[in-house]
């Protein structure tokens, strides 16, 4: 799809947070785009759901800006528009289900950090650990079944690869701010297949020019 008359603004905080996959998709798509860091919370009422990230698509053809929100929704829209999600409904769904599982893992992180009661904290931690373990098992099997190329599906960079990379960025970089030992806890759980995916995505010709404010994920998981 021609992108010469379309440009994007991604509104979010100046952090990795939940926006890294969208940033990588925009870079990989080869479209013109910029990060915008709105004054917060002043700009809250001006966002569709009062939250970020928000994607603004501008066109030179005079049509109004197209604005969407919700991080995983932004990712799916970009992935479909720029060919990173298959058009086949079943093939696309098999990729999307992985991202939804990753969202579930992320949702289990906050309660364990916010909980003051040690018993409840431990319970949330157990749930988080358990679901992360399931996710790693599922991802590793897919990678092995795909000839251990570092790609989850097929033989080129996919939506699934990108959001998986973005997920590990979120938990190993963003969450480290809330739980100092998270890298030490999670790194040993990463299988060689997942480490290879991280390397293959980071060095992909379409991604390599993306300079994440989180630094190199390869460096973090290899250290």
């Amino acid at each position, binding site marked *: 799809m021609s992108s010469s008359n379309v440009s994007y603004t991604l509104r979010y905080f100046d952090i990795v947070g939940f926006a890294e996959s969208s940033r990588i998709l925009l870079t990989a798509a080869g479209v013109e785009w910029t990060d915008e860091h709105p004054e917060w919370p002043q700009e809250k009422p001006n966002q569709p759901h009062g939250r970020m990230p928000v994607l603004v698509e501008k066109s030179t053809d005079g049509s109004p800006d197209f604005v969407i929100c919700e991080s995983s929704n932004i990712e799916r*829209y970009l992935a479909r528009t720029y060919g990173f999600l298959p058009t086949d409904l079943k093939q696309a769904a098999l990729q999307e289900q992985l991202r939804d599982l990753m969202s579930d893992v992320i949702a289990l992180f906050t309660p364990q950090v916010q909980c003051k009661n040690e018993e409840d904290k431990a319970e949330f931690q157990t749930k988080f650990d358990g679901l992360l373990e399931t996710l790693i098992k599922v991802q590793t099997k897919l990678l092995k079944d795909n000839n251990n190329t570092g790609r989850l599906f097929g033989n080129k960079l996919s939506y699934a690869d990108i959001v998986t990379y973005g997920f590990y960025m979120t938990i190993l970089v963003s969450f480290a701010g809330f739980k100092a030992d998270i890298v030490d806890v999670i790194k040993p759980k990463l299988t060689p297949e997942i480490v290879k995916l991280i390397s293959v995505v980071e060095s992909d010709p379409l991604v390599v020019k993306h300079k994440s404010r989180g630094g190199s994920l390869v460096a973090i998981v290899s250290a």
Partner: protein
Amino acid sequence: MLSGSDTVYVLRYFDVIGRAEGCRLLLTAANASWTEEHPEWPAEKANQPFERLPVLVERSNGNEWILCESLTIERYLARVFGFMPTDLKQAALQEQMADQQADLLSAFFGQLTATGDMKSKQIDEFNTLFDRMVKEHGRILSRSSSKQHLFGDQLSYADISLYAFYKLFIVYLKCYQSDIAEIVKSKLTPEIINLILSIEKEPQLAPHFSKCDTMAAIFTAKDF
């Protein structure tokens, strides 16, 4: 419709509204051949691809295909059965509503399980998010030509997802927090209540209400 007439679906879940109501409503509205299975739990955990439910099993021409994650299942069924717009922008506007609803469900459990100082903060957050969402539903509805649908003049994924969401909060979640139904009801505008009751009356959804109650009796004259 992209599914063959010999395709049958099995929805595996617990025998509760929970996170599967959107899937049930979509399969019903699609007039698909489908049944529900309530696997022994946790005995059947290890036999599910993600060790969780819901799971959708699609059987066609002797082949079996399996999908997990409630929202992925919903979006897949919505696309297969024509409830999701094929235009990517229009689809994204519907999908973001479902994602917002999922955030609200997380916020509900967040305020439910919070303790100490966090509790009142989480309750405030939940209320703020919910009120904002209701306002957004109202805004979309005000731009819709038919006040019985969010987009266009036919039942869409967004309508089904919205109905399932309000049913979850008004009918089901009281098993976790006894006053949540009243709290949520008090936040609804007459327009949103009217939308909920209109969706419920869609002929495509009629078979669903042979198995459960409508919400019509829950909203009395004083709610409007």
